[in-house]
């Protein structure tokens, strides 16, 4: 709403509920107010000093990675609109008149209120050091601050950055400076880092770890002056600095910090992170306003979040409760709920303080702090475990009788954090030897979720208890996503997500659910069971399998899965009439569908070896059909942007030049990556390319539960990254070493050494057997890595089955593989010679035209799909 609209603020008959500040807590208050229907009783007006609605300050630093402020947004503006919340951006409140029940907006207008909620947060404290007004001195609180930091850091002559303050936020800011590519320093006044949360020994380990990451940490340094330099390496900036007072030195950095111990530090940028102060400026500037402040600033509140004036509330970081300001979001959210309940007339709920335990990853270092970290409680006992070699430090603080946990510190390893926090929060009795809780290699007393009381807080951001999560599961929230959306647990800082998942699992078992491995609603069998049925009963069609062993119509899950099983068993041409409609579009059109409905074309380039002539053909075809070309991560070339109706013509050209399909669309062998090997490489001990070609040509086209990738390296230097593949082969002086079940992708896994020094014949035998055994026993869409992890008995079991033939099926596995190898056909070669099959490669059944919604624009000299906005523009122009 603009200022001109302000006349509307008193437009309805409803009294006004005014909220000052639309930060994280102010926004949470609004959400709670809506939940309680306060928007029916009141006209709710929210005044925000910033120019954007509330955003997630906790994740502020991620802005430096994505630079997209909208990703941090918390406010659903439509929700504000439909619930008639009036948000006034860019409107700072400068005065309160508690006698008249009114506030004044900067610029002079005033608005009356019946209830007033102050949620003005806090501001970064900048120590009063001379020279701190330089344009390269920043703070770290708002998106606007980050934009300014970015602007400074991106200047080509800005190379060094100093963070003043080694607390939690300071270290987060230091990480941001590292991300921005600056040579980073942390300057801390106290003798240690994170003095609030850690004890000196913990602080020392943290310092070592952070220094190992290339950040210089200076503790015990007090800055007395910041000198603005005349910068010699940066002509265009001289002008700007020259006009400012206090310029002394000619240096190649913008600034010089002088410390009280007479040492100096040159830098180009300074970030102050020396603590926060409650934002109480409205009251400070208007002592007559009638709201009492605390001795050290901040708005005093009682257990109802009320100030000394019963119609004025304060919540979040601007409030002082029991002499304490809470600099975390969770206590602020609690205050917001209590305040909303109070205004709605529910006076039961009161604020009773908050737990300030924290766990975070600072610059890749795990740090945790619980309760009384400094062992200040009288008579308390401390247990310490220290491992300087790995940089791990853990401390437990217990009550004098050794029965209760009072606090804990963890640096370098926070695995025990959740357990300890639950012991602490729920006042659970400690085991006989509390030190066992932090010692490595000791059987930890079980602290699984089953032992927690229902009142245990699992998610502290939204104050969700174990009982609440269990209740939600009982009411039908059977997945993590559902639990999150109905309880909000895990949707704040995210730290509790693993616990939430455990509680979900626990409650599902309590309710008697079994892990259901049915393929889908049409088949009450696992993929493995269906595979056996198909093979043993010689079933050749989906309909036969559905009639004999399933029910209903079939669906997008069972159809492709059964198609894959049928292919794995019989290797029939995938576009046979009764197999074709089972295939996903990728298999059906023998290409990968793209976001705009076009397809990609990936010819096989076995082992990545390709002749100049073939490369020229690829280039020529791409040029003739105007396709986007890219070298893939699998050592071959991908051609994108082929329209359905172009696919046959493109493939006709490629097949004619001797190419085959690369099965980039299939759940089957993708590529066998190779390094150049002994023919050229001075270290190679075997012909890795030759073996890659043999393997790729042997297994191409074999349908499997998921895709399979292989790699062959010519020596132990491993340039083909074979250990990240389903099958990795590394040449040795004496033969081949075989690694299995590696994976890149979402959950990377190193392959495990399966057998050593094999000759080529044995190697292929083993791969035949493992692949077939995988096809027989894996779940749907299960990569070899997950499959291997699910094998009871592990690698050893697999070795027994494959090498020692413990199940007596080795010969059978080899024979079945040989059948698949013998039945191989190139699907594209088969398709382009079949007039009937080619019919399907038309966009329209009744017209030769193409899809006019496929539109390309040019970027970096090649095509790419036009965005919706670009399409609109093109339409209006065209």
């Amino acid at each position, binding site marked *: 709403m603009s200022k001109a609209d302000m006349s509307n603020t008193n437009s309805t008959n409803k009294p006004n509920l005014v909220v000052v500040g639309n930060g994280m807590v102010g926004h949470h208050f609004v959400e709670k107010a809506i939940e309680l229907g306060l928007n029916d009783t009141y006209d709710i007006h929210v005044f925000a000093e910033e120019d954007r609605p509330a955003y997630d300050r906790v994740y502020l630093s991620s802005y430096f990675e994505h630079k997209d402020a909208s990703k941090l947004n918390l406010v659903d503006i439509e929700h504000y609109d439909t619930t008639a919340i009036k948000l006034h951006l860019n409107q700072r409140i400068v005065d309160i008149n508690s006698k008249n029940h009114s506030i004044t907006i900067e610029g002079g207008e005033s608005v009356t209120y019946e209830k007033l909620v102050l949620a003005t947060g806090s501001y970064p404290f900048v120590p009063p050091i001379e020279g701190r007004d330089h344009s390269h001195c920043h703070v770290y609180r708002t998106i606007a601050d980050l934009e300014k930091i970015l602007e400074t850091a991106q200047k080509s002559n800005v190379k060094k950055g100093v963070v003043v303050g080694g607390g939690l936020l300071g270290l987060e800011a230091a990480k941001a400076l590292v991300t921005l590519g600056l040579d980073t320093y942390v300057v801390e006044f106290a003798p240690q880092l994170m003095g609030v949360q850690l004890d000196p020994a913990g602080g020392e380990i943290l310092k070592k770890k952070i220094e190992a990451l290339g950040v210089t940490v200076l503790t015990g340094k007090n800055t007395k002056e910041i000198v603005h330099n005349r910068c010699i390496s940066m002509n265009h900036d001289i002008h700007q600095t020259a006009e400012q007072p206090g310029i002394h030195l000619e240096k190649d950095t913008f600034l010089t910090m002088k410390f009280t111990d007479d040492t100096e530090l040159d830098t180009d940028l300074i970030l102050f992170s020396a603590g926060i102060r409650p934002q109480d400026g409205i009251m400070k500037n208007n002592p007559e306003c009638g709201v009492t402040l605390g001795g050290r600033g901040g708005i005093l509140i009682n257990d109802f979040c009320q100030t000394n004036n019963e119609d004025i509330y304060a919540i979040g970081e601007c409030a002082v409760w029991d002499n304490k300001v809470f600099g975390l979001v969770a206590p602020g959210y609690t205050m917001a709920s209590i305040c909303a309940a109070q205004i709605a007339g529910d006076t039961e709920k009161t604020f009773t303080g908050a737990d300030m335990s924290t766990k975070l990853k600072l610059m890749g270092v795990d740090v945790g702090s619980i309760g009384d970290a400094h062992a200040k409680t009288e008579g308390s006992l401390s247990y310490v475990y220290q491992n300087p070699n790995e940089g791990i430090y853990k401390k437990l603080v217990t009550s004098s009788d050794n029965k209760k946990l009072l606090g804990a510190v963890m640096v370098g390893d926070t695995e025990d954090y959740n357990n300890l926090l639950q012991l602490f929060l729920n006042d659970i009795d400690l085991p006989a030897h509390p030190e066992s809780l932090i010692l490595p290699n000791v059987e930890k007393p079980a602290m699984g979720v089953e032992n927690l009381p229902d009142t245990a807080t699992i998610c502290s951001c939204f104050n969700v208890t174990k009982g609440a999560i269990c209740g939600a599961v009982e009411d039908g929230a059977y997945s993590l996503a559902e639990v999150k959306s109905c309880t909000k647990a895990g949707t704040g800082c995210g730290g509790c997500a693993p616990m939430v998942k455990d509680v979900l699992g626990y409650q599902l078992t309590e309710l008697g659910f079994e892990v259901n491995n049915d393929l889908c609603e049409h088949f009450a069998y696992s993929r493995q069971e269906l595979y056996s049925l198909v093979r043993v009963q010689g079933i050749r069609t989906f309909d036969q399998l559905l009639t004999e062993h399933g029910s209903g119509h079939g*669906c997008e899950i069972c159809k492709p899965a059964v198609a894959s099983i049928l292919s794995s068993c019989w290797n029939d041409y995938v576009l046979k009439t009764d197999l074709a409609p089972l295939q996903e579009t990728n298999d059906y059109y023998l290409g990968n569908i793209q976001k705009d409905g076009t397809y990609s074309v990936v010819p096989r380039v076995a082992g990545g070896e390709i002749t100049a002539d073939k490369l020229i053909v690829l280039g020529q075809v791409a040029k003739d059909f105007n396709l986007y070309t890219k070298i893939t991560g699998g050592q071959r070339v991908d051609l994108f942007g082929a329209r359905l109706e172009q696919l046959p013509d493109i493939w006709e050209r490629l097949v004619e030049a001797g190419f085959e399909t690369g099965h980039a669309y299939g759940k089957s062998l993708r590529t066998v990556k190779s390094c150049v090997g002994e023919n050229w490489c001075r270290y190679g001990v075997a012909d890795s390319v030759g073996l890659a070609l043999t393997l790729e040509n042997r297994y191409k086209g074999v349908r499997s539960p998921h895709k399979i990738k292989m790699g062959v390296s010519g020596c132990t230097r491993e340039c083909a990254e074979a250990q990240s593949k389903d099958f990795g082969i590394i040449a040795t002086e004496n033969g081949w070493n075989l690694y299995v079940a590696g994976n890149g992708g979402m959950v990377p896994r190193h392959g495990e050494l399966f057998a050593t020094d094999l000759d080529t014949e044995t190697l292929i035998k083993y791969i035949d057997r493992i692949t077939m055994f995988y096809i027989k026993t894996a779940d749907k869409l299960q990569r070899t890595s997950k499959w291997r992890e699910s094998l009871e008995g592990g690698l050893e079991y697999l070795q027994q089955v494959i090498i020692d033939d413990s199940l007596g099926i080795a010969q059978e596995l080899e024979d079945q593989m040989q059948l698949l190898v013998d039945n191989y056909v190139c699907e594209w070669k088969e398709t382009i010679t079949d007039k009937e099959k080619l019919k399907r490669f038309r966009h329209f059944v009744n017209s030769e035209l193409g899809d006019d919604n496929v539109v390309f624009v040019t970027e970096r000299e090649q095509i790419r799909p036009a965005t919706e906005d670009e399409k609109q523009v093109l339409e209006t122009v065209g």
Partner: protein
Amino acid sequence: MTTQLICKLEDIIPEGGVCALIEGKQVAIFRTKDDQLFALDNYDPFSKANVLSRGLIGGTFLEDTAEDGSTIKREVIYIASPIYKQRFDLATGQCLDDDGIKLNSHTIILKDNDVLICLKDSLAA
């Protein structure tokens, strides 16, 4: 009622779909294994691409509550988009994964072996 000839029945494989250009609009036509025919818009509002005819046909049982409070199970035959897999009821166009989305559905007639579409005003316009 005006109709327009689209293709022959054998042009659509059982459990498959084709796309037809009808008065400038793209319509996806599906044939189930028991030879029922359905027609929906070909445009997938989720991926914003004209691809629904290339999806997979499936069936699922949904529970409806009758006026007297009893529940009735009914099988819905749907098409799952090939891009992000949202499902649409073939008979009504209703999206099964998002109550707020419904595609236009069209009437198809099989006469001898000809697949015909009934032109609605919306299509003719």
